[in-house]
């Protein structure tokens, strides 16, 4: 930690907490203590909410344009220059639609579900370090908090599916619960690998570890990143794992009966969750606001948001390219493929950390070795386990071969052929 010097000028926007610190120190001089807490909570909460709302609105445009380019078409370009006003058109359309309630549905639970779905999506943004001193709440158990908050989504989606009084909604809700529970286990184990190396569950502590060791945790734990990425894609119900809400499969699953702004809320929650996935991956695996010293010229929060959007682009890329998996394929993938890989990753990681601490080796020597070992192990494990567990794609014939001759009698031939 840098020693506390004179307060930087409040207009130094490389660290947005400068202005806030100035305001809070002025407040603590003139008012009681609780006023400082309340004001800082209000400022931080409003800032995060505005950021999340702005990205939810902007991502409608980003997603549709990028998916369209991947599908060799243009995407929305009518509603303004390059279709930039399309999100406003979408939101207006959704807001002026009638928000229906099924006649035999459960009114309170039905109306609460989309509102509560936004809760975890918003709460998770409070622990990210946007910059060096810019974390809204720097929890000691940040990683575990993220996992706990996203696991409450399970109940909310079941509420949505059940209260619709619709067979397809209930089926979608059952599939969603089964999938979310299954994918939580490898997700937690993958993040445990990250916590193992960093030694702390606090997100700013993990970024500080990467900053001190001058290495991305993605290089030290590549298998953990892959497992986390796949599990989080399943957790937020995105293609290729959106079996629970896909139109061609189950008529939109748990949000079939929702119309108007309730559906708009579910859609916005999906986009915000995708950004949250990007933010978690950027913080834990790619260094957060730190980029090998670049944060001396570019503000840390710009680097962070850039990384989040790069990972979001990766998500959109997967959505546009991969076909959808069936529910039994998804469950088998989670339990039979990802879970053993995550366990092996933890065992190897724990062994490495033990060797590092026991023999008191220097980080500069040990971390590149660990990176190479983990990277090769990741490739070996994924390819080897896939060959062992999955359909033997590598044994399919690559070109047509004659297997054996079948005697076929041509029609009209004299040897035994009837008319």
């Amino acid at each position, binding site marked *: 930690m840098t020693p506390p010097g004179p307060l930087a000028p409040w207009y130094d926007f490389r660290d947005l907490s400068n202005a806030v610190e100035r305001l809070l120190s002025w407040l603590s001089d003139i008012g009681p203590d609780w006023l400082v807490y309340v004001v800082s909570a209000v400022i931080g909460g409003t800032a995060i909410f505005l950021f999340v709302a702005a990205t939810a609105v902007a991502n409608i445009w980003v997603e549709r344009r990028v998916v369209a380019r991947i599908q060799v078409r243009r995407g929305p370009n009518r509603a303004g220059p390059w279709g930039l006003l399309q999100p406003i058109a979408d939101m207006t359309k959704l807001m002026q639609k009638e928000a229906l309630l099924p006649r035999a549905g459960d009114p309170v*639970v039905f109306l609460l579900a989309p509102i509560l779905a936004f809760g975890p999506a918003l709460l998770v943004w409070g622990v990210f370090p946007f910059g060096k001193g810019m974390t809204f709440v720097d*929890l*000691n*158990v940040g990683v575990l*908090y993220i*996992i*706990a908050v996203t696991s409450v989504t*399970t109940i909310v989606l079941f509420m949505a599916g*059940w209260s619709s009084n619709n067979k397809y909604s209930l089926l979608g809700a059952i599939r969603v619960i089964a999938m979310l*529970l299954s994918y939580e286990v490898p997700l937690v184990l993958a993040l445990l690998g990250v916590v193992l190396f960093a030694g702390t569950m606090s997100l700013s502590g993990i970024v500080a570890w990467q900053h001190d060791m001058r290495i991305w945790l993605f290089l030290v734990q590549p298998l953990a990143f892959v497992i986390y990425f796949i599990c989080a894609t399943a957790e937020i119900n995105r293609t290729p794992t959106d079996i629970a809400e896909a139109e061609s499969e189950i008529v939109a699953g748990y949000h079939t009966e929702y119309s108007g702004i309730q559906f708009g809320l579910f859609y916005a929650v999906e986009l915000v969750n995708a950004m949250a996935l990007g933010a978690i991956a950027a913080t834990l695996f790619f260094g957060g606001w730190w980029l090998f010293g670049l944060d001396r010229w570019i503000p840390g929060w710009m680097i962070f948001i850039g990384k989040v959007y790069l990972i979001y682009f990766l998500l959109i890329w997967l959505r546009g390219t991969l076909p959808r998996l069936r529910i039994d394929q998804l469950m088998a993938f989670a339990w039979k493929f990802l879970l053993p890989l995550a366990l092996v990753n933890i065992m190897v990681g724990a062994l490495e950390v033990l060797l590092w601490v026991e023999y008191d080796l220097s980080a500069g020597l040990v971390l590149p070795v660990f990176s190479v070992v983990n990277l090769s192990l990741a490739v070996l494990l994924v390819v080897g386990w896939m060959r062992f567990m999955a359909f033997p794609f590598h044994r399919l014939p690559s070109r047509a071969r004659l297997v054996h001759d079948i005697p076929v009698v041509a029609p009209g031939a004299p040897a035994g052929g009837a008319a």
Partner: protein
Amino acid sequence: MDEPGVVAAFWVLTVTAVGSAVMVAAVRNLLHAVLFLVLSFVGVAGLYITLSADFVAVVQVLIYAGAIAVLMLFAIMLTPRAARDNADGIFWAPALVLAGLMATTIGLIATRTEWAVSDRGPFSQTASAIGEALLDPFVLPFEVASVVLVAAMIGAIVIVREE
């Protein structure tokens, strides 16, 4: 612990936790009862936070609200429709008597014990303290608990296995 913020938080969380617990028994629809139970779990997690037990609070939300409540939802989904009403039952009178006796017992214990204030300050890192406690003095209960969990999983698989 007498700051107005902590006291206000304590009362709000207590009303949430206890009120939702009462509603679990009082509400008619079984699904609403489970949702009030989830609210009660979250209230208890908040109470853990007022005691600076950050790890336990987060794990409470993760395990109780995220897994045990889902287990109850599965149980409700897979039972027949006729048993969905929370209100019918002839056991409400003995239940009230039992609840009253338990409340009296716990209340008397809580108010009549000479609670000693520990001179050990709050932990700076509860997660690592819990981890070290589970692997040093309490390693035997930890291992026995994992054996019990494996036995439960094998039992569940045996029960639902098709011949």
